[in-house]
């Protein structure tokens, strides 16, 4: 395990040097396949995340994956005539390059309304150039959590804007509903939106935080037209306060079985009654002694 970690660390360092300074590394690149992936996620605050994963995977040992860090990735919004450069980001130590575009950014779209995005890596002495493109439509999700006639109701609406900026409901869209946790989201329902809207009664028993609050998410996972889209809403439907409170330790708590009290009480009463009886008889002896002393 230790030697593997050492190898991992050394290789990563060497790749870094290779990319930064163009120094020939000791690793034989023929043994590795370069994996270059590009995807986009529309986040809960409507910002758009552009993410490239750039790693080298060993051809024989598929678990031997070396992140290529320090590589310059240039992101573009492709247009009919020219590409608009969105920004340049270096891959981090895990091989990821991430660019977050503001929510109000005006993308160039094609005739069908698709945003064409491209992520490009320019070749170096050691590595060839890489480029990936994708096209997504801008999807808008509205998630509403409200109590209607004491029924906890979740409503999700999905629409896209057409060329005349009119809301067009999206059909046949797979969506995953989940609740936010400390580390990741916990899915609790998967549905398909038929006509741009879906409504259901929330019945899951989720504790939430100490006030019963938690975030509810709707998640479109890598859709062909829209990519990955995430939306969230805050609710106070947590059941935390309904938990049984720990009882204080007290002598007569009902935590101990009843027979324990009964046996203990009988034993103690029996013994202490005998002590009292002894004390009472000693007083009688004393009384009689006093009478004898008085006679004397």
């Amino acid at each position, binding site marked *: 395990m230790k030697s593997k970690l050492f190898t991992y660390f050394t290789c990563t360092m060497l790749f870094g040097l290779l990319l930064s300074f163009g120094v020939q590394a000791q690793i034989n690149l023929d043994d590795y396949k370069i994996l270059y992936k590009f995807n986009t996620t529309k986040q809960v605050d409507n910002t758009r995340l552009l993410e490239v994963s750039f790693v080298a995977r060993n051809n024989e040992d598929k678990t031997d994956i070396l992140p290529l860090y320090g590589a310059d990735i240039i992101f573009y919004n492709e247009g009919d005539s020219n590409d608009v450069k969105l920004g340049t980001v270096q891959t981090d130590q895990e091989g990821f390059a991430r660019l977050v575009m503001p929510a109000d950014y005006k993308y160039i779209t094609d005739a069908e309304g698709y945003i064409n995005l491209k992520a490009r890596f320019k070749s170096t002495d050691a590595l060839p150039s890489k480029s990936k493109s994708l096209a997504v439509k801008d999807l808008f999700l509205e998630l509403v959590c409200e109590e209607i006639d004491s029924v906890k109701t979740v409503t999700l609406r999905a629409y896209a804007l057409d060329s005349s900026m009119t809301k067009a409901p999206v059909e046949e869209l797979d969506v995953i509903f989940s609740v936010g946790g400390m580390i990741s989201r916990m899915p609790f329902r998967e549905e398909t939106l038929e006509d741009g809207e879906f409504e259901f009664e929330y019945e899951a028993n989720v504790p939430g935080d100490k006030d019963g609050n938690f975030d509810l998410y709707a998640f479109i996972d890598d859709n062909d037209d829209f990519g990955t889209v995430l939306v969230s809403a805050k609710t106070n439907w947590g059941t935390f306060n309904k938990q049984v409170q720990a009882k*204080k*330790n*007290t*002598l007569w*708590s009902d*935590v*101990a079985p009843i027979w*324990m*009290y009964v046996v*203990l009480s009988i*034993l*103690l009463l029996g*013994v*202490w009654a*005998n*002590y009292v*009886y*002894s*004390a009472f*008889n*000693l007083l*009688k*002896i*004393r*009384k*009689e*002694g*006093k009478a*004898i*002393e008085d006679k004397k």
Partner: protein
Amino acid sequence: MDLDIRKRELVKEFSPMLTKSTLTSKIWIGILIAVIATGLLAFVLQVVKGHEVTGMRDNVVWGIYIINFIFFVCLSYSGAFISGILHFFKTPWKNAVSRIVEIITVLSLIVGPIFILLCIGRLDRLHYLFLYPRIQSPITWDIIAIMTDLVGCFIYLYLTFIPDFAILRDNSEDAPNWRKKLYRFLAIGYYDTETQRKTLHKLTRTMSAMVIALAIVAYSVLAWIFSLTLQPGWNSSIFAPYFIVAGLYSGIAVIIIAMYLIRKFYHLEHYIRKIHFTSAGIILLIVSMLYGYFTFSEYFSRWFSHKISDAHLLETLFGKYFWQFILANYVGVLLPVFILFFKKLRTIPLITFASVVAILGLWLNRYLIVVPTLETPYLPIQDTREEFVHYTATWIEWSLSFAGVAAFILFFILLMRLVPIIPMSGIIDYERDQDSKKHKVSTQN
């Protein structure tokens, strides 16, 4: 028999024990006080600096304090048990030992619980045990049992002392005023009338039965503190009877040693005879065989079960603690059995020697029950300090332990200055019974 004359004779015979101090006794008392003072100094250091000054740490949280606690409390329970049996069955030779046993019972019940207080890291939270007890916890049962037993033993001891206080009150003309007043107060107007005698006998008899039952209950509760846990070496169904037998073993041995010392120091050869030693020796022999049988059963079942945790414990016992194990469970049992088994070896010094070996063996056995178990936890410990998983008692713990023993002996000596170690009322009762029997026989003839 003129009772008044006989009582006067007995007081005259025993009063040197109560009043006169020899140089040897003064030196002994001085030594005992010095040992107690050292213990008090150690106690102050422990309170100021905390348990850091002891060998107890995160894993081995109990050390020789708990061993002393078990030892003294067991001694007390066995004393109560033996004393109850002597009184309840009106054993013919009870006069020689009954008071020794009663004093041992009460004193060890006072000294023993002090050691458990020394184990507590935060003494300032001691009252929480009473404010927030968990009735499901054997510790709570033990607190209730010890307090109830202590009160019971005090009442019982006092009941057996009353006739002697009365005799001393009526026959201590030359005694200092404070002593006279003390005897008058403690005798609570007892004049040995028919009614008073009957009432007192009835009470003593009831209390003697009570203390036998109490001793068994309290003994078992003490054993359950260990055996109701899942710790290897403690989780055993026979721990309660094992503790009872072990307690009796130590109790009888301490009585024999006390008889030997008192007989030698106060020249009571007339009252504490060889027959008393032989009888106590035979009882010790029977109990030692029983104790050996329980010890064997305990370790045999652990060895045979091949459970990993038990195997680790036995490895520790037969490895790191090899000699202690041999001394405690082989020498500590087999040597007394060997000495007491052969009639020719049943001499007073050898019976006493067997008792000393039994006491030391039993104390060591207690050590082996507590410490190696805590040094062999269920979960393997990594990257911890060596001292956290290995225990060595510090001088603080040893000095407090010796202080406890010294306090026990000192209180014993002081109590013997208050009442004679041979109950005068017992001798009178015995002689009165003999007279009435003779009278019956002569009337029938």
